[in-house]
């Protein structure tokens, strides 16, 4: 039965292997370029040069990495649509179910072998692609530090493996229920895309209770690219703060003085020193301001990766169980 699953899947395997080989060549090239850039311009750099080099790194490689990220995000969807959905529907449409279900192999085993062989292939394709991209972009990610960003998180390390298996099983089971290839493809795509939008925007941040830290406004904070926003009620918000490597869950947060009262417009006036930013910052720092920082700490990155991988593997198992139930009920 493994032979048949493999034989029917041979063309797709060759296509996938060819595409992966091309991607591997490109990603290895890209990775060594970025490493080269890093070694010559960022390692051992000094203040101003560092800042410029970072900007330059982003400007040079942002497009290339974005394209790869989009591709890797699309791969599980493609697997679900082109490997999952037709897996059973094609047999039904060409009526070959009547041939294969009358060999000396039960339907349960038939489905189990097909799901295993092609499920493993799906995981391997997404896993290898992710491994290559993670390696290729590792220096870039280290410098830019946005690994919790929706697209970065979903296109690095181990989570793409879970997405791929889930999309494949989803396509297969949708196909079993709908019984026609094209509608099954469409439904698979819609459901999977919906889930891929919903998880980073609504679900992921709640997978672990977030942490609130009280952050004192010092020179480091002020130099990290934050903004102060005077609101209509004459109090200030601090905007755009992200502690190194962590995941900020709110863009802006109210500023408080040392006595926990809001930082108001008139409080800021003494520190408005035109043409001397350093003096202004020193004045602000001396006011001992603080704010609440709601975030997921950086050390949770791998916990999040594992949680999300397990979540998708778990969903895949549930769907598979449903698929077997469906097959048994129909026969």
């Amino acid at each position: 039965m493994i032979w048949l699953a493999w034989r029917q899947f041979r063309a797709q395997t060759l296509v996938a292997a060819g595409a992966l080989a091309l991607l591997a060549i490109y990603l290895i090239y890209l990775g060594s370029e970025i490493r080269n850039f890093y070694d010559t311009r960022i390692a051992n750099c000094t203040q101003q040069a560092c800042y410029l080099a970072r900007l330059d790194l982003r400007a040079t490689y942002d497009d290339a990495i974005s394209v790869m990220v989009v591709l890797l995000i699309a791969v599980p969807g493609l697997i679900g649509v082109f490997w999952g959905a037709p897996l059973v529907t094609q047999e039904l449409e060409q009526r070959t179910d009547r041939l294969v279900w009358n060999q000396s192999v039960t339907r349960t085993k038939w489905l189990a072998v097909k799901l295993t062989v092609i499920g493993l292939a799906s995981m391997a394709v997404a896993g290898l692609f992710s491994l290559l991209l993670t390696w290729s972009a590792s220096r870039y990610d280290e410098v830019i530090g946005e690994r919790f960003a929706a697209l970065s998180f979903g296109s690095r390390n181990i989570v793409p493996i879970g997405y791929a298996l889930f999309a494949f099983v989803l396509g297969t089971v949708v196909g079993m229920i709908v019984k026609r290839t094209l509608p099954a493809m469409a439904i698979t795509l819609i459901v999977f895309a919906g889930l891929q939008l919903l998880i980073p925007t609504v679900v992921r941040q709640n997978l672990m209770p977030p942490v609130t830290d009280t952050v004192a406004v010092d020179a480091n904070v002020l130099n990290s690219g934050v903004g102060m926003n005077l609101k209509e009620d004459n109090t200030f918000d601090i905007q755009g703060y992200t502690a190194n490597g962590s995941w900020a869950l709110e863009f802006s947060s109210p500023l408080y003085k040392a006595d926990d009262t809001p930082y108001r417009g008139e409080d800021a006036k003494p520190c408005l020193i035109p043409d001397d930013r350093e003096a202004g910052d020193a004045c602000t720092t001396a006011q001992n301001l603080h704010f609440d920082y709601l975030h997921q700490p950086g050390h949770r990155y791998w916990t999040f990766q594992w949680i999300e991988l397990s979540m998708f593997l778990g969903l895949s198992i549930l769907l598979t169980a449903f698929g077997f139930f469906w097959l048994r009920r129909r026969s």
Partner: protein
Amino acid sequence: MTLAIHTESLSKRYRRHLALDDCTLAIPDGRIVGLVGPNGSGKSTLLGLASGMIAPTSGSIEVLGQRPAVSADQLARVGFVAQDAPVYSRLTVTDHLELGARLNPKWDQAFAERRIRERGLDLKQKAGSLSGGQRAQLALTVAAAKRGELLVLDEPVAALDPLARRGFMRDLLDFVDELEVSVILSSHLLGDLAQVCDHLIVLANGRVHVSGDVSDLLAVHYRITGRAGDPYRLPADAELIHTENSRDESSVIVRSTSPIPGAEAVDLEDMTLAYLTRATTTGPVGPTAAMTGADR
């Protein structure tokens, strides 16, 4: 005696359509069974149930003493060729033999290869580019080389031209002898089956109208001809199947366990037609359709 197929009150309903209605059959082992009926009479449904492709709505079916497709062992005992002989269009003839070999424990590779060679099929050809007849041969070869105990063939000759039909049937007889396998095959034309089958089932409107070994059936059916309007006497247990009146002659076909003086033997074709005509004109058989001579 083992029964090849044994059904009791077997019914299959598709939404509102009753495809098979309360069908009770006992088909002995070692026969070539012809399943005849018009299109839509439930032949494919019955064969689908026998192969385990579909499950009954009510009633029961046993094939070779077990529920169809209940286990890999049971699957190995029954070979099935569905209507239109489905094959994998992208796989070659060789691939199909390999498929058979890998998925069936009792696979007979020598037999399969010999048959493919004798039918003149190209081993490297993709099954999708085979002609209808070649495809039927390939599907039949895969089903037969499984070396099961029962072969179920749904309309195996429907896609073939008349000459190929004769060839197919002759060939079937040959290898049935060689493989010692029971066969049940369906057709909407009795002519396809008359030469090969030794057991007949007539199906119409989802019901079994007659079933039995051909010799037994022929022994109890008679034709009585006389002048139109002439009264004739039937034995008390005789059942009138069909009356045919022309201008000056009347011909009836009756079923009777005791001999009828003056009646002639009837051939399989006429007998089957009589049942089919009755089924399509009077609807499902019931006790009212059994008119006996005593009523007259």
